[in-house]
């Protein structure tokens, strides 16, 4: 899963063993990035 650290703004890869923590700066707040895929929305 790809996230972005909210403090150092670096891309972070998380696995199930490492816990929720930025490996570069140790910050525990991570942001989930928008998927690069094109999103289709129906106007209703």
């Amino acid at each position, binding site marked *: 899963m790809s996230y972005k650290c909210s403090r150092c703004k670096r891309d972070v890869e998380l696995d199930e063993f490492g816990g929720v923590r930025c490996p570069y700066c140790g910050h525990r707040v991570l942001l989930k990035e928008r998927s690069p895929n*094109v*999103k*289709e*929305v*129906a*106007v*209703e």
Partner: protein
Amino acid sequence: MVNDFQVEFIEREDRRARFVARGLTPALANGIRRAMVADVPTFSIDTVRFVENTSVMFDEMIGLRLGLVPLTTPLDDFEPGDTVTVALEVDGPATAYSGDIESADDMVVPADENIPIIELKEGQRLEFEADAVLGYGKDHAKNQGGVAVGYRHLQRVEVVGDAGEFDEQEPNILRGVIEEAAAEHAEGDAEDGDLVATETFGNDLTERYPGKEVEVHDVPEAFVFSVETDGSFDVDELVTRAVASLGDRAAELEEKVAL
């Protein structure tokens, strides 16, 4: 039953008109009104494919705003269900306007160019591609070509006597269009049979017939339509298409019930 209808315009612009139609039953008048709202198709954005949206609004919110942007609709060249692709690409800091939407077909473009879609700040970006579909107002309100379409009776104002000499005259408010029936008592130049919009005398009958007692009656089989379009096409197109669709339905019904 074949009736001739008489149509007389009171106000006629590209996007708004007011006219008196005579010889209609109330059912037919309402049928025309409903056809103008529901049965004249217009283009509107239906599916949006967001490539990038880093604005403060969600994709769905922007999609809804896009759906409401009126697109010009040349009805002679398209069939209901036809699709036109449009796209937009704006980098912040800037505001994305409806006029920034680029269309694959020059005939189908935003009718108004200054509608703000979303304000983008530094580093924000909006890019999408969308399909505009020619659809009916009865399926979705965004496809309604007629806006604030309505009708009311044509009214006839008759002078029945003088107001009491020492009576304080209270305003007698009437809105719509009147057919002049007491020209000799009216202020200014007037002839019997003139169609007068009530705005011209402040919607107040005491302004037009000072010191007179008046009675207001509906004129039978005469309706004052007030029609506005959202810019997809002009009023003439809307009304003629609506009437044609009503005619088509009547013909279809006649054919289906024929023995």
